[in-house]
């Protein structure tokens, strides 16, 4: 059976073809304008950030050589020939690593605790006072926009050098970040239990305790664990501004070109971060799995 594709007469076809061409051209023009804007922005940004491509290309070999140099001892031998010498400070470093973890842990805990309370205040479905809700929301926004290292710098001046300012800085930032995530969880709860408990004449606290908290707890825990993971990374660099943890030793080693120490400390940090990632991931899956069943 022969089939033919019907073809419109040319007179009818022409305006359609022209419309198609115009639409295509408009789209292309739009893309071109977008690309042009991007290129201009790129050059302006490149000028402002003092990008020197020539110099960069001339010195690019320094990057791989620097990385390679990190794996050689002062004696000139490769670090792998003498692991003991490479990790000579492991006792001290492990202690600092424990300190780093504890900074992350206590900071996350304090921040999560504050976020837990505030999230019910700022969630649209449970909050009862509008001005309180808006002002707390703005405050939390401020807490998560200012980088934690800036808080750490200020707290170091107030509380002195050591892990305390690091913990407080992480706690404040965590409160801001988790407060938002927690309140989003609360806003997504099933409102039927809330209505039921309100109908029995319960106070706001009782409603939150018996209608909202049971629904959100596992999600809260999951978010808090994720934040703990992020905070371990944050705590590792707190030492850069004197706020405790392993960062102090790392920045000293980098600045003073103790190359093998740099690689040793970096490896310790990476391994620790990976182990924590794996652990929290399993915990989170267990938590969320329990909720589903």
């Amino acid at each position: 059976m022969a089939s033919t594709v019907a073809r419109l007469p040319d007179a009818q076809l022409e305006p359609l073809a022209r419309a198609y061409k115009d639409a295509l051209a408009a789209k292309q023009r739009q893309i071109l304008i977008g690309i042009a804007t991007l290129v201009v922005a790129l050059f302006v940004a490149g000028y402002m950030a003092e990008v020197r491509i020539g110099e960069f290309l001339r010195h690019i070999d320094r990057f791989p050589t620097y990385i390679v140099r990190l794996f050689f001892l002062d004696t000139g031998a490769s670090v792998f020939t003498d692991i003991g010498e490479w990790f000579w400070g492991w006792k001290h470093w492990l202690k600092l690593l424990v300190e780093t973890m504890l900074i992350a842990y206590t900071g996350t805990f304090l921040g999560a605790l504050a976020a837990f309370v505030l999230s019910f205040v700022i969630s649209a479905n449970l909050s009862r006072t509008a001005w309180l809700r808006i002002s707390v929301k703005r405050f939390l926004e401020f807490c998560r926009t200012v980088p934690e290292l800036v808080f750490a710098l200020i707290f170091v001046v107030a509380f002195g050098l050591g892990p305390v300012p690091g913990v407080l800085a992480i706690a404040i930032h965590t409160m801001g970040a988790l407060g938002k995530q927690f309140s989003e969880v609360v806003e997504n709860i099933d409102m039927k239990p809330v209505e039921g408990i309100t109908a029995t004449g319960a106070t706001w606290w009782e409603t939150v305790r018996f209608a909202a908290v049971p629904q959100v707890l596992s999600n809260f825990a999951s978010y808090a664990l994720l934040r703990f993971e992020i905070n371990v990374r944050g705590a590792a660099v707190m030492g850069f501004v004197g706020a405790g943890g392993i960062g102090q030793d790392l920045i000293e080693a980098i600045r003073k070109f103790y190359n093998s120490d740099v690689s040793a400390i970096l490896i310790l940090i990476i391994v620790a971060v990976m182990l924590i990632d794996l652990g929290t991931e399993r915990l989170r899956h267990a938590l969320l799995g329990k909720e589903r069943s």
Partner: protein
Amino acid sequence: MTDLSSDTPTSFAAHARANRRELERRYPLVFAGDPLGRTLTIATVLGIAGLLVFGFWYLEFEPMKMWLGLGKLGDFVRFMIPPSTGTWSKFLIYLDALGETVAIAFLGTLLGAILAAPFGFLAARNVMARRFVQFTTRRFLDSVRGVDELIWALIWINVVGLGPFSGVLAITVTMFGAFGKLYSEAIEAIDEKASEGVISTGGNAIHRIRYGIIPQVLPVIAGQVLYYFESNTRSATIIGIVGAGGIGLHLAEQIRTLEYQHVSALILMILVAVATIDYFSSRLRFAIIGKSQVAV
């Protein structure tokens, strides 16, 4: 057997308490509890609290120190008001540094996004058939991400010297790791029907990527790039603390020299810049992916 619904005038709670024994007999499972679950819960709570107490002790949280520190912090905040940069010339210097910060974030995000593209495909399970390559790429991206931005900044300072360029490179590397992972996840989540269609008409792997995958992932990726531009403006502000350009250098200096009003003015400038970028990038994001699909 008592009829529980008979005397409605008394409160429900009082009634339930009065008939507790009867209720216990009727619904033994509700009252029995779960001894194993309960022990586990108590143990978890004790463990969490114990670790917290240990942390406070280990990190030397002393009440006296906290009290004095809070007092000092109060002074600090009081001296901060009103925010002021002293002179206009100082303000212009800060403004220039802020521009540098935004430029660092912009370049770093864009370069990272471009460099990560091929690695995103290599790390995606449905594109890279060789499991070994896919796995190695993933782990490579993971370890790049495992090193903090600030550490990368320090390393790049050793290569290209102090200044904003090292900041750009630091953000580029970090974003390379982050985007590589995000891309591969976006690619793994695509609808395969388009790819199958391309293959069935005789297209090769390149055609499949160009016509079957890229049109699907491009809006998602564009949204993420815009989101990270805003988030990187925040990180670019601290990169100056280690000497990699931008406003962070001024911020750290003013905090250390206790120029409180300058500090609050700088923080205010950063907040305004971040809010502005957030506003425009989210509008662009909505324009690209449509309002309904934006989760962040």
